């Protein structure tokens, strides 16, 4: 889930208050078999945490999982850290509302960036043996850039974790009728226990477990949905009939690119340039290549080849996620029915009120689960949602723990302590991160309006960081001062553009280049401008400064680094082969659904 928000902070289809605005009656009534399945999940994650405690005695073990993860485990963890329950429900709702356009966030908004990370950027992250992305900035640009990146990341990570925790507790309340305090306390205690015990290895193991549960719990919904509608062609025929009869609002629900020629031609108010350059480059690369939450998973790989293969493996599963997220949302358009047998119409959250009998877009996934899943299977589906939430939170606190210990505590507070000391600091940082998250959750509970601001805050840092990392990684001339100023001014640019539109909504036409643009387009163009500004500032400041000697840039910069030679392997184990396959599938999917 956490992964949603760095990405979605700039591009989330609905605000968090909107996401958690459900109808008054619980949607799901669990049976004892469902409760047993959920309980078994909690028992398993705690078992894993206690088991792995024995293997987390050194800082390399605790923070980097011993750098011994296989490509498959690192890859599944990499993609799983982004696959949260709020994301599943939110994007299913977006698919119901906007159609297949929502798939862009899984394909062009992820795949190119993941492959770029694996094949181009990963060697530098891996070879320089950094423990974190701020750590890379330290090596490349010096302490100033690292402190800015580390403090902003640490602060925002725990804040987002708390916001997500509250949002998920709200979802559990309205979907299952669970008490808010119960959801917050039980889930956060479980996460604190298994991450503090087993460190990153425990977080990664649970993310892989969560990944399997999500597929096991959610895959059945689109399968049964397609059986009911008579396959994809049957679905399209029913949808066309509904649109022709006026039962479903008119629109192009099944094509990715045809309606993106102009802002006014699609309900998202987006132009294809915003999708390609804003989402596909600025937001997507910013998240997938520089957000330490996801990069940390790949840094834990057991070899350079595994580190490069992990995002490639993840890209295949990322391409498949729309099958369990977008497709159920689309199918909901034609199969969901009211108790009287008429077609159900989901509505915006502003129209849902207690007693109205209406459901919001965001309820489409739980509604589809209730429609098809018998006891046991329903428990598995709900377990998948809970697992998504918990692993997202675990991702947050494990990344926070590493950045706090390596990039704030060690360089600024206690520089030369024993290794055991830093492991202990990491464990306590995990607990502290959970406590701050709980505090944030209760803060948000009393002032829900701050949730959107927190999401916006996170988005301010991601894209400028991309600009600075790219310049540092691919341009030897970039100087230390340029990295600091590029990052700072890029962040200020993003904040400034956001504030401009917030104060004067009419400014959107300038930021997003069209009077027909909507909020989501603004997010994309704002990210794009902030990347470009951070790169431009880095360029200009570098030209007025003295470049570092090339010898100092070994392992950090393209052209100054001799990458280790990898053993030859059969083509089916080669990362370039699988990258080519991923690109071919990605292109084919976009053409098929053009």
């Amino acid at each position, binding site marked *: 889930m956490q992964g949603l928000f760095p990405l979605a902070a700039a591009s989330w289809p609905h605000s968090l208050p909107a996401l958690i605005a459900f109808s008054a009656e619980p949607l799901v009534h669990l049976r004892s*078999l469902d409760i*047993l*399945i959920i309980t*078994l*999940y909690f028992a*398993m994650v705690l*078992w*894993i945490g206690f*088991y792995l405690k024995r*293997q987390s005695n050194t800082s390399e073990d605790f923070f980097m999982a011993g750098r*011994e*993860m*296989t490509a498959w*485990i690192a890859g599944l963890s990499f993609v799983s850290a982004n696959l949260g329950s709020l994301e599943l429900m939110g994007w299913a709702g977006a698919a119901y509302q906007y159609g297949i356009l929502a798939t862009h966030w899984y394909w062009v908004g992820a795949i190119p960036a993941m492959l770029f990370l694996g094949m181009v950027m990963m060697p530098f992250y891996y070879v320089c043996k950094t423990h974190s992305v701020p750590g890379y900035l330290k090596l490349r640009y010096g302490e100033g850039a690292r402190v800015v990146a580390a403090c902003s990341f640490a602060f925002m990570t725990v804040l987002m974790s708390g916001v997500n925790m509250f949002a998920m507790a709200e979802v559990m309340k309205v979907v299952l009728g669970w008490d808010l305090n119960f959801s917050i306390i039980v889930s956060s205690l479980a996460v604190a226990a298994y991450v503090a015990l087993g460190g990153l290895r425990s977080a*990664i*193991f649970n993310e*892989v*477990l969560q990944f*399997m*549960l999500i597929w*096991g719990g959610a895959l*059945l919904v689109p399968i*049964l949905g397609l*059986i*009911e509608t008579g396959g994809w062609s049957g679905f399209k025929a029913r949808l066309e009939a509904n649109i022709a009869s006026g039962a479903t609002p008119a629109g192009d629900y099944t094509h990715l690119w045809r309606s993106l020629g102009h802002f006014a031609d699609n309900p998202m108010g987006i132009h294809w340039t915003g999708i390609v350059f804003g989402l596909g480059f600025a937001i997507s690369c910013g998240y997938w290549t520089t957000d330490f939450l996801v990069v940390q998973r790949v840094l834990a790989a057991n070899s350079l080849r595994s580190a490069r293969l992990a995002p490639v493996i993840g890209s295949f599963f990322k391409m498949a996620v729309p099958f369990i997220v977008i497709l159920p949302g689309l199918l909901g358009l034609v*199969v969901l029915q009211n108790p009287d047998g008429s077609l159900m119409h989901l509505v915006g959250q502003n129209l849902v009120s207690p007693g109205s009998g209406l459901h919001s877009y965001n309820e489409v996934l739980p509604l589809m689960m*209730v*429609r*098809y*899943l*018998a*006891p*046991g*299977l329903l428990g*598995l589906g709900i377990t998948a949602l809970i697992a998504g939430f918990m692993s997202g939170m675990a991702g947050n606190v494990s990344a926070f723990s590493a950045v706090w210990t390596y990039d704030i505590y060690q360089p600024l507070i206690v520089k030369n302590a024993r290794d055991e000391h830093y492991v202990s600091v990491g464990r306590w940082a995990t607990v502290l991160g959970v406590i701050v998250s709980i505090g944030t959750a209760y803060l948000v509970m009393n002032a829900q309006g701050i949730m959107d601001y927190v999401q916006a805050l996170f988005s301010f840092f991601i894209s400028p960081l991309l600009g600075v990392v790219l310049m540092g990684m691919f341009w030897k001339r970039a100087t230390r001062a340029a990295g600091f100023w590029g990052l700072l001014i890029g962040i200020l640019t993003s904040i400034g553009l956001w504030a401009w539109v917030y104060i004067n909504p009419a400014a959107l036409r300038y930021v997003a280049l069209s009077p027909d643009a909507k909020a989501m387009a603004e997010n994309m163009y704002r990210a794009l401008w902030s990347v470009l500004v951070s790169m431009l500032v880095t360029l200009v400041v570098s030209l007025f400064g003295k470049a570092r000697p090339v010898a100092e840039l070994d392992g950090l910069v393209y052209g100054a680094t001799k990458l280790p030679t990898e053993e030859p392997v059969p083509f089916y184990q080669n990362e370039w082969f699988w990258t080519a396959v991923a690109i071919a599938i990605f292109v084919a999917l976009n053409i098929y659904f053009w």
Partner: protein
Amino acid sequence: MHSSRVSIWFFIGILLAVYGALIASYGCIELATKHSAHVVLANLHAPVWWGGLLGILGLFYAIKFRPGRSGK
């Protein structure tokens, strides 16, 4: 991971096998008693075959990656 350690796939296998057994058992009881849950396509008896699939997959992983084997 060192071969002396338990693979994550073993944990996943155990959990999926238990889930599969529970869900398939429920499905079989439904089938035997002719009392299906009130869900769409209940006639397909998804708990039986989906639970069975989960169980087989879980058993495969639990056995292949059981402690003591060197598989990862």
